[in-house]
């Protein structure tokens, strides 16, 4: 398990992490969300001993990363940003290097290297020097090295960053598979759909402070606004925009094109039915009425907006 207790990191006058407290229970997958510069990577760097905190504690399996990093990281696998690899080594040599540092035997390294390289679909490149690899290939290899020693805890910083859409799906499938194997996973991402799809819970931070930390279901329930795309059979008159904008719980109406508009609506599910009726009452022949965007995305936007 991971325990982040009142963690603080200051860079001069800037507080990158501000009194952050998060507990990641064992065998759970927790997403770590926040806009750029929110402090996600800084927190993960502290957890992985890449930088020192200014205050507070970060513990992995009960061991303080700051005071006993070797012990804390013994059963942790990490991918922080997109790491660079030693270009003169092949994937097999890289995994052997890291495996030896972790005390794995040669036979164990061979077995696990083949497994994890197959898992990230890098087997055919296993004896090619990494200097020639693309960013996506390096990201796959980064995931492979994190899994090599079958760690109890996985810390992933934007694990699908740099991957093409197919690669992203594959990595998500890998993480889902690990989740089923009871790994404790703490992953940052700015892809909300990814977090919603993979994680049990999510913590949202902004400006280094924790805004909310709850299960994905509870976070979805926190969603206050939704966007509804409304399509009409005929052209939507300009006067209809003004009138619809004045309806209860509607905060804005934006034209997508002459036949489609986007309504930002803060009402619950039943109120949405009333909204449909009201729009039809404006004389529009509604052919489409569907919410757009993910609930988590709406929640994220609401909370981040409020925290500013």
């Amino acid at each position: 398990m991971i325990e982040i207790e009142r963690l603080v990191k200051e860079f001069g006058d800037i507080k990158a992490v501000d009194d952050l407290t998060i507990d990641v229970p064992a065998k759970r997958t927790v997403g770590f969300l926040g806009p750029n510069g929110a402090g996600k990577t800084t927190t993960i760097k502290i957890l992985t001993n890449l930088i020192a905190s200014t205050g507070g504690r970060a513990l992995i399996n009960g061991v303080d990363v700051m005071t006993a990093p070797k012990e804390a990281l013994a059963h942790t696998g990490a991918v922080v940003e997109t790491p660079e690899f030693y270009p003169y080594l092949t994937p097999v040599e890289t995994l052997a290097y890291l495996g030896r540092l972790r005390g794995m035997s040669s036979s164990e390294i061979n077995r696990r290297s083949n497994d994890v390289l197959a898992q990230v679909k890098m087997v055919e490149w296993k004896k090619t020097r990494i200097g020639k690899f693309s960013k996506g290939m390096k990201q796959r290899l980064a995931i492979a090295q994190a899994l090599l020693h079958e760690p109890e805890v996985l810390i992933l910083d934007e694990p699908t960053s740099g991957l093409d859409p197919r690669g992203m799906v594959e990595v998500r499938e890998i993480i889902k598979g690990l989740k089923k194997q009871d790994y404790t996973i703490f992953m940052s991402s700015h892809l909300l759909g990814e977090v919603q799809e993979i994680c049990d819970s999510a913590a949202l931070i902004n400006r280094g402070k924790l805004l909310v930390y709850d299960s994905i279901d509870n976070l979805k329930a926190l969603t206050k606004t939704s966007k509804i795309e409304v399509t009409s059979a005929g052209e939507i008159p300009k006067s209809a925009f003004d009138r619809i904008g004045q309806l209860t719980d509607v905060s804005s109406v934006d034209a997508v094109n002459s036949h489609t508009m986007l309504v930002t609506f803060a009402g619950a599910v039943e109120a949405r039915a009333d909204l449909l009726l009201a729009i039809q009452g404006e004389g529009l022949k509604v052919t489409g009425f569907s919410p757009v965007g993910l609930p988590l995305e709406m929640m994220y936007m609401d909370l981040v907006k409020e925290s500013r």
Partner: protein
Amino acid sequence: MMTTEELHESLHHVPSDLEQIPIVWRYELLKHLRSKRLLASIALVFVVLVPINFLPPALDVPYSGTTENEAVAFLEPEDMAGIAGAGIPEFGSIALLDKSAIDLDSLEVFLGGVPFDDEDGAAWFTLRMTYQGASAYALIFTSNVTAADVTVSYEWFTAPDEFAGIFLGFGAIIVIICATFFGADALVSEFQNRTGYLIFPNPIKKPMIYIGKFAASMTASIAVLLLLYGGVAILSMFNARGIDDDLGLSFLFAVEYLVAVMAIAYLISALLKGTTGATVLTFLLFLLILPIIDGVAMFTETKVEGSLTFSGDVVSYILLDPYPVDWAYETAGFEFTFYYPDPATSALVIAAYAFIAVLLGAFLFNRKQLVG
């Protein structure tokens, strides 16, 4: 919180700090073995060995040869005074044979074209003289033969210490280049090239990474030095009829100097943010900045025994037998003094630099954070 036992149990298969050092060393050494820098260093050794060995003979200045029927030049009486004071009994005349080593068994003296027997030293004998690393032979006649037509024939060669000294004058430069190639960007590259994101989140302490890397840089550099010294030894066997006794000692000094220069290269690598800056600064520091300081100090008649580059010159001077002593000369109204590092003091100074730079470099590397 974990108990001590649980903590120990959780680490049951992670190697100890000491066990991790050879692992880092092995893969860092692989980097050097696969790099063009090692090839460049080896090429540089050949750039030292080949021209120095082959160019002078090609330009008609061989390292060994045979002199036949060469007329000798006698010293003037006033020049003989200094040699006479060297405990030599009364004599008649002295001729100089300007060679660093002569096969005395082959030496024949002719008086008016007739062989002139030495009569077991009663007629003439030789004395090898050395001054500031240069050697010559005095052919001392017990009678005054300056009026006669005296010629000599002999086989000569370059003395092993002088021969090795020609090559190992570049020894300190090879050390500096090795430290620049194998050490200057060793630490900073982990941050600039972002490989630290891969290695630092592993259960290994940064000082162990430092030691493993340092050992690998030293291994690659020592291999290059061995090539240089091995080459000098082989060439010396052919051209100087033997290997200088102090070649091994020179190698030990070179390795000690390498440790100190490498430690400072690592210190610069831990301090700076860019690989280019660290490489250029290391190179310029040892090849330009410190030698300029040494030169200015010598000009002001100050013996900078605390200077690393001044002490590093012991690598080549230690070959000379006897070891040169400070000397001065005056020209155009200026007095210049040539200082030579004392071997014992140099050994201490170099060790002190190495010790302090290693500690400081490891400390800074341990504190350096992967920000940005």
